[in-house]
Every structure is written in C-alpha cells, then in structure tokens.
C-alpha cells in the first residue's frame, strides 16, 4: 500500500507542475458556466428546462464532469510520453512491483481528477442550493462524490489504455480528441436526453443514454435538483465504467512495461 501511495504522490506532484494548464482549464470551465450557460439560459426554450429551473442550473452539475474528465485524462499524455522516451525503464528499476506501479498510476489519474473538480463541485452545490433550496443529505453527497470518483478512475484508465495502445503521439492525440468529443457531446452534460434522442441518430442517442458521463451528470442532478429521478442504473453505470477501464489500463500498463 505504501509503495502505491508513493506512485500516487509522485503523479500528484507532477500534476501541480502544470500550473498554466490548470489556470487555463479553470478559466475555461468558469467561462462555460458564467458566460456561455448564462447566455444560453435566455435562449433555451423553457419547455426543455422547466424541470431544472433554468439551463444555467441544468448545466452546473455537468460542469463538474467536464472538469474532472479533463483533469483525469491528463495522465494518459504523461504515460504516452514516458513510454516513447523510455522513462518507464527507469520506473521499473525502482523497488516497486509492476502491479503496484500500474494501480498507482490509474488511481493517481483518478484522484487528480477528483481534487481538481472539488472546488467546482462546491460551486455547483452552492448554485443549485441558491436556485432550488435543495440541500443534499450526507448520504446523497457521498453518493455524488463516489460516483464522480468512479468516473474519474474510469477516465484515467481509458486515457492510460489509449496512451499505451500507440507510441505515436499524433495517433494518441487523434484518438483522445475523438473519444473526448464523442463522450462529451453525446452525453447529458450539455443537454437533456430527450433532446439528444430527437436531434441525433439513434446510435448516437444510445451512446448518450449509456454514457457514464451522462449517468454521472444525471446522478448529480437527481440529488442536487431532484430531477431526473435517481435510479440504481446510474450508479451501476459509473461503477462498471470505473472498474472495467481501471482493470484494462492496469493489464495494458503491466504488459507494456514488461516489453
């Protein structure tokens, strides 16, 4: 356990080296909420957002997903670079077992996402409380954080799996962009599922329906806004995403470092 924590600690220290990136991301996230969502609130039909008070309130829980996904995905870029520059050889020379290293990397990516997202989650809870007077119970709050942690770990695993599937940085970037945009724009982070089903082809609507980012955003909305109603599927979806991609990433990472 101690060695896994060392690996996590190392990745955390690396994360906070990207000050410029963090500053840029925070400003982008806040600009999305405080400018884009505010303007769209005046343009979106009230029939669509009536259960959520307004578009601004609807979008606020989606913001935390956007933030944690971007932060958790960063680990893949680092691992791709380490594999290309053979820094992984140095990592293997350390008195750490391969599986410990693999678990540490996946968990670090997940925790980085969670830490980065925390101030934005507090902002979201404040906003939803101001507009709806809903205060989540400790159990509900714990469920939101746990769901977000699973999404973060799954994202970290997905990003690591992509990163080590190719040594070409360009290919990694391309794959990352495609995955990133499909997962985000085919999800309920920006708009409700009914609207997606009426605007996009059925295949993409299905992606949106089972997308773990949709499950995470809707689970947060269920506890912070009271709509859509909470269902166990939401939690199962994010747990499955987290566990499956964490496992895939660990196995792939161990295999790559064995070469």
């Amino acid at each position: 356990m101690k060695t896994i924590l060392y690996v996590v600690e190392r990745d955390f220290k690396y994360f906070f080296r990207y000050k410029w990136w963090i500053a840029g991301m925070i400003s982008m996230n806040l600009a999305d909420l405080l400018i884009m969502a505010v303007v769209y609130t005046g343009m979106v039909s009230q029939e669509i957002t009536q259960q959520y008070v307004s578009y601004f309130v609807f979008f606020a829980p989606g913001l935390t997903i956007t933030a944690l996904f971007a932060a958790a995905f960063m680990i893949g870029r680092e691992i791709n670079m380490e594999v290309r520059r053979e820094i992984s050889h140095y990592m293997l020379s350390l008195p750490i077992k391969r599986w410990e290293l693999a678990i540490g990397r996946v968990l670090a990516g997940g925790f980085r996402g969670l830490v980065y997202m925390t101030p934005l989650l507090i902002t979201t809870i404040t906003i939803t409380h101001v507009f709806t007077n809903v205060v989540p119970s400790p159990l509900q709050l714990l469920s939101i954080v746990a769901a977000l942690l699973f999404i973060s770990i799954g994202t970290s695993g997905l990003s690591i799996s992509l990163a080590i599937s190719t040594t070409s940085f360009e290919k990694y970037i391309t794959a990352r962009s495609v995955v990133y945009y499909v997962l985000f724009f085919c999800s309920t982070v920006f708009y409700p599922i009914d609207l997606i089903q009426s605007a996009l082809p059925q295949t993409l609507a299905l992606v949106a329906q089972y997308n773990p980012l949709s499950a995470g955003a809707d689970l947060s909305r269920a506890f912070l806004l009271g709509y859509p109603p909470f269902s166990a599927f939401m939690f199962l979806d994010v747990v499955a995403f987290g566990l499956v991609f964490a496992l895939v990433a660990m196995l792939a990472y161990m295999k790559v470092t064995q070469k």
Partner: protein
Amino acid sequence: MISLRKVWIVAERDLRIFLQYKFLLIMRAAWFLAQIALFGLVVNKMLTPEVQQTVGGNYYNFYAAGLIIAMLYSTSVFIGYDIYEEADHGVIEYLLSVPVTRKELVLGRSIGGGLRSFIYVSPMLLFVLYIIGVTHPLQFLVAFISLFLFAFGVAGFSITLAVSIKSSDGFDILLGVLDALIVRLSTTLYPIAYMPSYYASIARFNPLTFAADLFRWGAGIESALLTPPAVAVFGIVLFFSVFTFLGIILHEKRLEGGSWQ
C-alpha cells in the same frame, strides 16, 4: 527598402512550421467536426422559435459561421507560441544571422501567422459556406478580404503579447484565459441581444464579434441583430492596423540588443 521576396520566404517558413503541428491541426479539426455534427445540431433544437427568427431563421447556420471565426482566432494566435519557442531554443540568433532585415523578418512572421491559419481553416470555411449557401457573392468577397485582415490582426495581437511578456508560464496562462473569454464574450456562439448587458457591452467591441457578424452578412444570413457591415469592417481594419503595427514595432525593438534572452 523591404524586399517582398524575402518577406514571403519568412512567411513560407512559418507555413511549413505550422504543418509540423499535426496534433494541433487534428485536434482543432476534431473539435470543429464535433461542434458541427453533434453540439450544433442538438443546441439548435433547444432554442425558442423567437431566437431562431432573430438569428436569421436558423440558429445552426448562425452557429456554424461563428465556429469558423473561433477556429480562425485560435489558429492565428499560435504564432505567438512559435516566437516563444524560438526564443527558448536559441533559434532567434540563427534567424538574425540570415540575410533578411529585421523589418522583413517581423513582417514575414505576421503575414505567415495569419496566412497559415487562413489556409488551414479554408476547407472548413468552404464546408460551412456549402451548408449556408452564398447568396450575395460581392458581399461575401468584402467579408472574405476582411477575414484576411482579421487573421493578420490576431497574429499581430499574439506577437504583441509574446514579445511583451517575459515569463513563458505567464504567456501561456494569459493566452489560455484570453482564449476562454474572448470567444465566449463575442457573438461567435450567440447573438448579442441575448447577452446580459454587462457581457454585451464587452462583446460589442470584441474583434471576434466584428469578424463573425461580417462573415454571416457575407454568407447572406439575414438578421437584424448583426453588427452593421460598415462598422464591422471599420472595427477589423482598426484591429488589424493597431496590432500589426504594435506587433511589428515591439518585436523589432525586442530583437534589438537581445532583450528576448
């Protein structure tokens, strides 16, 4: 006396360097596709009929035209990063040793920075024009020329920032924050009439607003909400003149005496 041939050689070098940023080009293209094929389609269905009416009948067309300007901005701004990188890696010393005057070098960078983003955005621009359908070719020509000036102006703006800020972290943060704010506080994504007054007053003077509204006017989007074309052209010419001039003067000044080091 400035040699246009040498200016072109410098600009051509920047064009070639740009093609090396495969990852950036791929990412931006993927972003554009996702916005056009997913986000734009769904958001178009979210809006009230009044909004659709006020943006010229179809928000999707309005949005697609705005995306082109956002793309043009984010790729033109990249020349500033190049100048920073070169200062970091000692390439500036090499550039100063080639038989090109400082003025030619600086002018070439500014032209190259704008031109390369224009070339990159062109296929997407044609695609958007195909979606919208150009109904007034002469209007479009005016808008097209103004967009060239806009791209050069953004390149000059980026060069001005790059040569005014010493810390590379500071430059990165500033550009990241500016990128987040300048696009959202403009009419690239939504019309000014739906912005709260505190945002609208900034958006009214944003060069991206001028460029986006002018492009929409050129493409024949009929909306009473657009900035009047004469005002937009004036705004873009002013933006281009100020920042190209500032970029050239400051860059040339900084090259003198090695103050970039």
